[in-house]
């Protein structure tokens, strides 16, 4: 059962939230960031090349141009491989753990799995980010030394910064699953 809804990120960009429910205690949220827009790409490339051409006209050295081409290519590759995140996935498996996957534009994926034993809670938090004050979803990890404390806070959907309504949706289902978890672990 897969549901797709459209939200917007804090810059007003378009975000698509896919919500797959595999079973009552296993859900997946898949947040697709807007793709790399051709306009910005061309803009960046053109600026670099224009600068290069300016330099070339100044010092009659064709090395500049080839260097510019290489720089743009390498920059694009690096950007796609290390910076541009296409999709962020949050997989919650009740009583097993929470898994965060962010897949880059180049197809590289980086995954972090947090076991339920370590998760204290999933909350929506506020932070000052650049010149904004934003909401973000985060996972609070238990402090093994003293169980009440929080040892660390792991942010979710860090690259695509969705707005509050989107976060609320994700947050609700997280809370449902966590609630089952809490109740069952509480009862025996």
């Amino acid at each position: 059962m897969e549901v797709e809804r459209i939200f917007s990120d804090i810059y007003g960009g378009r975000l698509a939230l896919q919500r797959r429910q595999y079973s009552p205690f296993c859900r997946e949220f898949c947040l697709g960031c807007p793709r790399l827009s051709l306009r910005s790409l061309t803009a960046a490339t053109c600026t670099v090349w224009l600068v290069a051409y300016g330099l070339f006209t100044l010092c009659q050295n064709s090395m500049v141009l080839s260097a510019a081409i290489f720089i743009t290519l390498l920059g694009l590759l690096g950007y796609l491989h290390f910076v541009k995140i296409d999709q962020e996935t949050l997989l919650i498996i009740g009583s097993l753990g929470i898994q965060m996957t962010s897949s880059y534009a180049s197809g590289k994926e980086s995954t972090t799995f947090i076991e339920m034993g370590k998760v204290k809670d999933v909350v929506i938090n506020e932070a000052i980010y650049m010149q904004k004050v934003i909401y973000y979803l985060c996972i609070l990890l238990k402090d093994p030394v003293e169980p009440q404390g929080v040892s660390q806070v792991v942010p979710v959907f860090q690259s695509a910064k969705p707005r509050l309504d989107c976060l609320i949706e994700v947050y609700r289902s997280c809370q449902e699953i966590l609630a089952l978890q809490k109740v069952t672990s509480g009862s025996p």
Partner: protein
Amino acid sequence: MGLLSGGAAEAGQGQAIPAGLLGPPRSRRLQPQGSAPRSWIPTMVLKVFFPSCCSSADSGLLIGRWIPEQNSAVILAVVHFPFIPFQVKQYLSEVQKVSQVDIVVLGTWCNNKQEKEENLGKFLDDLGTIFSHEPWLQISKEKGSKFWSCHTLSRQADTPTEDQVILVYYDQRKVMLSRLHPPEISLDNQPGVITAPDASKLAAVFDTVAKSEVLFMTDRYDDGPIKLTHWQSEGVEASIIVELAKQASVPVCMLLTGLLSLVSGLCKSRIFKFWPVSFIWSKLSTCEQVRYRLEHLRFVFSNQKAENQNQLMRKANIFVSLLVDVALGILLLSWLYRKNRIGQLADALIPVADHVARELQDLLQWLMGVPAGLKMNRALDQVLGRFFLYHIHLWISYIHLLSPFIEMILWYVGLSACLGLTVVLSILSDIFALLTFHIYCFYVYGARLYCLKIYGLSSLWRLFRGKKWNVLRQRVDSCSYDLDQLFIGTLLFTILLFLLPTTALYYLVFTLLRLLVVIVQGLIHLLVDLIDSLPLYSIGLRFCRSYRLAAGVKFRVLEQEEGRPLRLLMQINPLSYGSVVQTYRLPTYSCYPKDTWGSLCKKLFFGELIYPWKQKGDKQD
């Protein structure tokens, strides 16, 4: 049987208690299930870790470990028909003795390839009465469909449950070989987090599989009483070379340790204890490097076994880096000693030193004139210039005295390349330090002079303003001086102020030279440290067998249909290269500057000695 089955039985009892408590709510709560999640009353989910290699095995018994606190079952192998229950229990108890894991029969596995015969099914059911376990798993796989059905029978509740079960497939081989790194490496580090193994269930699963290695030692060809299916059932992996190496390693280690102890004893002998020798010994980076390597060798070839995985890793890393180092060194050696390159080098060396000296002389001449139109005090300028010129003169004569022997020295020094590239490099840096010794002296003189001036000026400036430094309160107080104090203070202040530019210029020039030298030496040291500290073995491991170093796991949801248990595939999430390096990097001896850039600049301004950070300057002062 009573005796032998004791372990399994009481184990079964032991685990029956919490499960039994769990039982009734689950079974009853099932009825309202299926409606909206809010009204859905949850239960503890049962997790079954199933080795993917057993998915095609024939029907039989599932043996593995039951982890009650997480309500999860780790299936290790499948026992095939035909077997005698008594023998199974006996075998299990033996395995248990060897590997401290309580392995029990968890349930039945029926893989009906041909059309489904129910007599087998009911036979499996009443197996449950023989091997008492709570809950009793029944995993069955129909022909064709990849969705299995998994029932759990419990004594109190007879209704089999479906969707409270998660089937987690795992690759047994990888899980057994990999070692799970503490999560604080994979997440960004948090010092406080040390998770006990029972706290994190995955660690429990991993070490269950890892410990029960004994179980996998029997493949299907050896004629035991019972037949198992697991990752090695097609044949146990083993390589003759490894075995031979294991055999051979012991005497080799003995021999080398003996040698090493001899060498180190030599190093510890009395001659090196006397002052000048020990001092120089401590100053030369070559000796440092050699000592460091000796330590490594002693560590690698020590007879006592590495008690934990980290130790083993460390040994391997050191060994590999040693090998690489020596290999590079020998390469260099072979290059050096072909067609008299040493001779050319030696001939090149003296002129270079001369050239440097001459350049310095010119520089001093320039300084003694009116450098860059600066207003220098002529008298002081002349004095300083002459002093330094004389110094250079001494230096040149020394070099020329040395020149005939240079080649021979180089030849012998070159031999040391067989000790490894790092040794050669450190020797190089030492030679460089010796050849630029005069620059160092100049720097020290200039710095001392400048330092004196600065401090004098600062205190006199306070007097000039009618203030004084209060030592008790650590602050500047106002104070009334006598007339003569004021007069003399101001007189000195004026003189120092007008003499400052001269000294400052000398200081500046020689500091720049010194910095140049220091930077070159620093680069060499960086290279040495890189070779020393890089954990090559770990990196290689990460490169070839990425699952051996696991940062954690990641799950993939396999496609599924309604009413069937959720199927996940557990993959191993390899450690990132960065964290590999920062986990396994070997400690180095090198002394890097402790101070930040700001403090460094401050030191430069106040004319304190920047490098070496400890007492290498004492030789002249």
